[in-house]
C-alpha cells in the first residue's frame, strides 16, 4: 500500500497532468473534491470514555481535511463520473426516449443567444463513448482505484 506521502505525490501528479493537458475545469473539480472535508462521528478512544455529549453539549460530529489517500479517492471519483457515469447517462436517455443520442440536443433560447454566454450547445452524442473505447477507459480507471478506491470509501465516513 502506498504511504500517505506517495498518495499525495500521485494526487499532485494527476493535478499537474490535467493542467498540462489544459483540462482546467476537470482539474478544478478534482481539487474541489479533494478539498471537501470529511464529516465523522466522534469515537471514544477506549470503552467507557465519556462522549462529547456527556462531557458538554457539543455535537458528536467531527470534521477534518482529507488525508492524501482520501483526496486521491475523491479525485478518481471525479474522473469516474466524467468517463463512466456521464457517457452511460447519455446512452440511457437515448434508450428511454427512443432516440439516437445525436438527435437529442441542448440549445440556448435563440432570443437570448447573443447574451447567453456559457449556455452549452451540444448533442448527447458528444457525451457518449463507443463501447469498445468505454471498456479500455474502464480498465485504465480500475488501475487507479485498485487497492485505493473501495477500501478508502469504507474508511472515510462520509456517506
Amino acid at each position, binding site marked *: 500500500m*502506498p504511504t500517505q506521502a*506517495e498518495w499525495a505525490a*500521485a494526487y499532485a*501528479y*494527476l493535478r499537474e*497532468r*490535467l493542467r498540462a*493537458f489544459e*483540462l482546467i*475545469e*476537470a482539474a478544478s*473539480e478534482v481539487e474541489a*473534491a479533494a478539498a*471537501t472535508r470529511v*464529516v465523522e462521528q466522534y469515537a471514544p478512544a477506549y470503552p467507557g470514555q465519556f462522549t462529547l455529549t456527556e462531557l458538554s453539549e457539543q455535537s458528536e460530529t467531527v470534521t477534518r481535511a482529507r488525508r492524501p489517500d482520501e483526496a486521491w479517492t*475523491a479525485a478518481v*471519483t*471525479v*474522473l469516474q*463520473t*466524467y*468517463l*463512466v*457515469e*456521464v*457517457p*452511460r*447517462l*447519455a446512452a*440511457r*436517455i437515448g434508450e*428511454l*426516449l427512443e432516440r439516437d443520442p445525436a*438527435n437529442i*440536443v*441542448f*440549445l*440556448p*433560447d435563440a*432570443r*437570448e443567444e447573443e447574451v*447567453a454566454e456559457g*449556455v*452549452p450547445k*451540444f448533442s*448527447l452524442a*458528444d*457525451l457518449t*463513448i463507443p463501447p469498445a*473505447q468505454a471498456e*479500455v*477507459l474502464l480498465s*485504465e480507471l480500475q*488501475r*487507479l482505484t*485498485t*487497492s*485505493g478506491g473501495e477500501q478508502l470509501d469504507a474508511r472515510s465516513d*462520509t*456517506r
Partner: protein
Amino acid sequence: MPDPTLADLTAAIDRLLGLSVARAALQLNRNATERAYEAYVFSLCAAAVRSIPGGRATLVGVVSGPNPATVVFRGAPGSMASRTQDFAYLDCQLGARQFEIHVDVEYEGQSRATHEIDVSGCSAEHARQVRRTGQAPRTNKHLLMAFECKLYTSDPGVALARTFVGLVADCSTNLLNGFVCNRRHRGLSRYLSRSGAPEPFTELSPLDPDSETEFLNVVKHRLKRWSPDR
C-alpha cells in the same frame, strides 16, 4: 491484485490521459453534464407515466408538434412559452387527467418570485394557457411535481437542497417534490429527512438499475394515487 506503487499510479495516469477519448470526455462543460442529468430525470418520468396502465406520455416539440425527429432541450432555464427553438416537453394523460412535464422552466412562486425548476409537471390546461399568453407558469395548484436535479462529481453538501427547500416553501402543496442526485451523503440524507422536506432520491444513476426502479415506483405510485379513475 498487488498494491500499486507510486510508479504504477503515475503510469496509470499517463495511460489514461494519453487516450484521446478520455481527454475529450474530461473537456466537457460542467453545464452540459448538469443539463444531461435533468434530461435523464425527465426521461425517467416519461417511463413512469408510460408504465401505468392507460398512461400516455408523448414527446412534443413546441413548434413541430408530436414526436419530433430531434428532441430539443433548453441549454439553460427559460420560458415555458418560448418558441424560438423547438423545445420539447411531455404531453401526458392518465385517465381524465392531462398534464405536461417540462425541463428547465421558470415559474412564478406564491411570493411572485421567479424560480427555475429543473424538471416539473403541471396541468396541461395551465401550460396551454401559458403558451397562449406568454406569461410564466405559477407554482400554485397547477404545479404537480417539482424535481431539483444534480449530478455531483464528489461528496454533495446541503447547499442546493437548502435552496430547493426554500423553493418548495414557495409552492402550493403538490403530488411530489423531489431532490434528485447521483450521490448519497449522510449530511444530505439527514437534512432531507426533516418533516416537509422534499423527497430524497440521492443515488439515482444509470449505473444503478435499482435506483431507477425505486424512483420509477415512487413517481408511479404518486401519479396513480392522483388519478384513481384511470
